[in-house]
């Protein structure tokens, strides 16, 4: 596949802004989202930036941003367009009940259908969303497409029909080579996303945004998970001072049960 014309598809999830103090709803069914500042998932911003950089290096052609959710996701997509993307696809999910139980499996199935249609050479997703921390969509998508996957990517270089990738893993850094097309998930140190400048924001208004209905794609969005309860983490209690090492070991073993 000619790298210069390679299409890249990137997922952009609209999440509660990282700086907001999240509050649990009084009915304990979820968190408060009404009137709360939302923005693009930071890892998705990094994915968007990486795609734009690849195009600047002339290693990519058309850049397509995708988001699944209510109409406000259009804003998230406009940000991707303002950062340099060419086109956006908004998979509209307007029913709040469906949106609330939308999970990585649903999203990866939607993406798989879009990939079939658009035939990108590379899909870059954020490694996880900062609201649910699932860290599953990229992996599931690769599985559905039977494509190679490179997750927790901190360095990406495209060479013709393969890519050299450095992954951040528990033991340190792992370097792998994947053949394209592949699914890559972006980790924090992959890059530092650019600001959408005002001129680009204005240009983005005119870029095309297609709306797609998930039923058109033949994806079943029925919930696979039922949320029973959402609550705040327990209030952090004060620490305890112990008199000697024996007591420490005793309490770690018998109270905290960690050894």
């Amino acid at each position, binding site marked *: 596949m000619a790298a210069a014309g390679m299409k890249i598809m990137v997922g952009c999830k609209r999440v509660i802004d990282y700086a907001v103090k999240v509050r649990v709803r009084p009915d304990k069914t979820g968190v408060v989202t009404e009137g709360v500042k939302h923005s693009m998932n930071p890892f998705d911003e990094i994915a968007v930036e990486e795609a734009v950089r690849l195009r600047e290096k002339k290693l990519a052609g058309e850049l397509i941003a995708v988001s699944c959710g209510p109409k406000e996701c259009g804003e998230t997509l406009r940000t991707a367009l*303002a950062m340099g993307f060419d086109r956006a696809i908004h998979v509209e999910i307007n029913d709040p009940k469906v949106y609330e139980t939308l999970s990585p499996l649903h999203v990866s199935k939607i993406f798989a259908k879009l990939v079939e249609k658009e035939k990108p050479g590379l899909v870059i997703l954020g490694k996880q969303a900062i609201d649910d921390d699932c860290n599953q969509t990229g992996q599931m998508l690769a599985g559905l497409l039977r494509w190679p996957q490179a997750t927790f990517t901190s360095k990406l270089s495209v060479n013709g029909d393969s890519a050299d990738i450095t992954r951040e893993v528990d033991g340190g850094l792992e370097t792998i080579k994947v053949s394209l097309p592949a699914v890559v998930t972006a980790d924090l140190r992959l890059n530092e996303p650019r600001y959408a400048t005002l001129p680009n*924001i204005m240009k*983005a208004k005119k870029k095309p945004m297609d709306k797609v209905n998930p039923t058109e794609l033949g994806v079943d969005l029925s919930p696979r998970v039922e949320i029973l309860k959402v609550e705040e983490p327990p209030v952090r209690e004060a620490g305890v001072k112990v008199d000697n090492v024996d007591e420490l070991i005793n309490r770690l073993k018998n109270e905290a049960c960690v050894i």
Partner: protein
Amino acid sequence: RRVHGAAEKFSQDQIKPIVREMDNKQTIYPSLLKQLFENGFMGVEIPTKYDGVGANFFSSLLVVEEIARVDPSVAILTDIQNTLINTILLRYGNEQQKSFWLPKLACDTVASFCLSESASGSDAFALKCHAKPQKDGTYLLNGTKLWISNSEQAGLFIVFANTDFSRGYKGITCFLIPRDSPGLSVGKKEDKLCIRASSTCPVHLENVQVSADQILGEVGQGYRYCIELLNEGRVGIGAQMIGLTRGVLDATIPYLKERKQFGQPIWEFQGIQHQVADAMTRLECAKLLTYNAARLRESGAPFVKESAMAKYYSSEVANHVAGKCIEWMGGVGITTDYIVEKFFRDAKIGSIYEGTSNIQLNTIAKYLNKW
């Protein structure tokens, strides 16, 4: 909304960390200046064909407001460029002047608005700067402008001088003078209480030769352009003051929720809550006055009274709220470890520049004559 989001994100990420330093050093870092240009914040209303952003007046105000929320000194630089400089060129420049200067103003050149002098502040049209017509059609400019913002950085000076004192203010003409013009020099920066990062210097004009094609608009119409522009500039100052007020509250409220006295956060005391509620209400009034003036301007309706009210009231609110914030913070409010004292100082300029509060009240009162 996206313009607002971009300005907010940039200001919080890039400007906020260096605010105190720039205040101490009395300078705006050239790297920040470059970023302001790159992000389009200096050419918001300049059409895209001149390399501007092509957005509207309201967008300029949002940019100024969000920047002021972090640093009113940087905000005034952006405000002057957008509401005074770019506007006067767009409105009165001929095609040659526009295509030469607008792209520069959008991309890399700061400009200064040179009206005030030592003997003419509120009485602006008593200016003494002389543009003597020469036999060959050029003009020779002599005089000293004072209190010129951004002058240290400016590449272009928009100078108001009188070509014919016998005609009184009807001789005032507007000239476009590039920095490298022989005879133009920028004097020593004022050491100021407030907006210290913004350079405020005298601009000396000594036999500066100016050709007729450097005249902006028509000879003798300068006073009219001035009145018009400062009217719009007022709404910009309104936005700056609103931003300042929001910024000082941003810096104060979290502290009130943390600081405990008598066994509870001071935020829990009704006295404090009442004062904060009052401050928020005044802020809301200032916002509505300013946004309404902007709305009227955008719809082409007269807005002189409303812009005077917006500027007057927003600066009063900024001063009041910043003062209150220092009181709520207590002892730490007056230390330079916290940014609140800077907002308090910066607020003072609001009731002085671009038309003092007294002048604004004069303007508003004139409309009452029609009652």
